[in-house]
């Protein structure tokens, strides 16, 4: 793939960081604000597609990306099945428990009450599943775009 002009490459270098951070923000705040794993993952995947279009870089680690996609799916499924140890399927065994992982207590809501007001690391397995879905969507959609670009370029080469 040929790379694009220097204007596009410079704008991509400037815009890559903020859009990536915004996608990570939407994934991590999935239980508080609109959006979640899929929306933030689609944002990060779109910035990956922007990088691929601007630089035309073909050195993607496709085996590693495929492995990461499987890891995302397995994390989601095992977060569902681990709920069986504490009660039932998809039981939120982390929220408010002793395990120091996304288990912050929600303080009592006296005085200032806002619908989105809660600690960031308080949602238990909901945050774990959001991160798993985000990883899955980022890697999957990036692989789709990269495969499409490489196939269309290979068709041009063959003519």
């Amino acid at each position, binding site marked *: 793939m040929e790379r694009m002009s220097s204007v596009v490459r410079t704008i991509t270098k400037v815009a890559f960081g903020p859009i990536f951070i915004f996608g990570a923000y*939407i994934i991590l705040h999935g239980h508080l604000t*609109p*959006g*979640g794993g*899929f*929306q933030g993952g*689609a*944002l990060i*995947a*779109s910035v990956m*597609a*922007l990088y691929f*279009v601007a630089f035309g870089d073909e050195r993607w680690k496709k085996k590693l990306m495929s492995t990461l996609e499987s890891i995302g799916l397995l994390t989601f499924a095992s977060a569902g099945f681990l709920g069986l140890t504490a009660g039932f399927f998809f039981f939120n065994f982390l929220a408010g428990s002793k395990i120091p992982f996304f288990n912050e207590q929600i303080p009592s809501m006296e005085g200032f009450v806002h619908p989105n007001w809660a600690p960031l690391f308080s949602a238990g397995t909901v945050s774990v599943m959001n991160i798993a879905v985000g990883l899955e969507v980022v890697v999957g*959609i990036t692989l*789709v*775009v990269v495969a*499409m*670009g490489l*196939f*269309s*370029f290979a*068709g*041009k080469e063959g003519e």
Partner: protein
Amino acid sequence: MDVFTLLYDMLHLMVLLSIVISGLMVISMKDLISASIASGACSLLVSLEFFILQAPDVAIAEAGVGAALTTAIFIFAIKGTRRREEH
């Protein structure tokens, strides 16, 4: 009628009209790259309409998938074939 309600309805009507116009542009253009860019603009306006209808969740997904990724995949597919539609 409240002036803010009037402005809100006018914005709503303008967005809906723009969706229809960009959709007509998509099906009438013979240059396929221009048609896919118009399709991306249609997706962006649909995302704005979702936001006006108070579904920001769907709006983020539509803006990411519809406006950015579908356009990129369409343009890659058009680069693999011919650019102009015949007759």
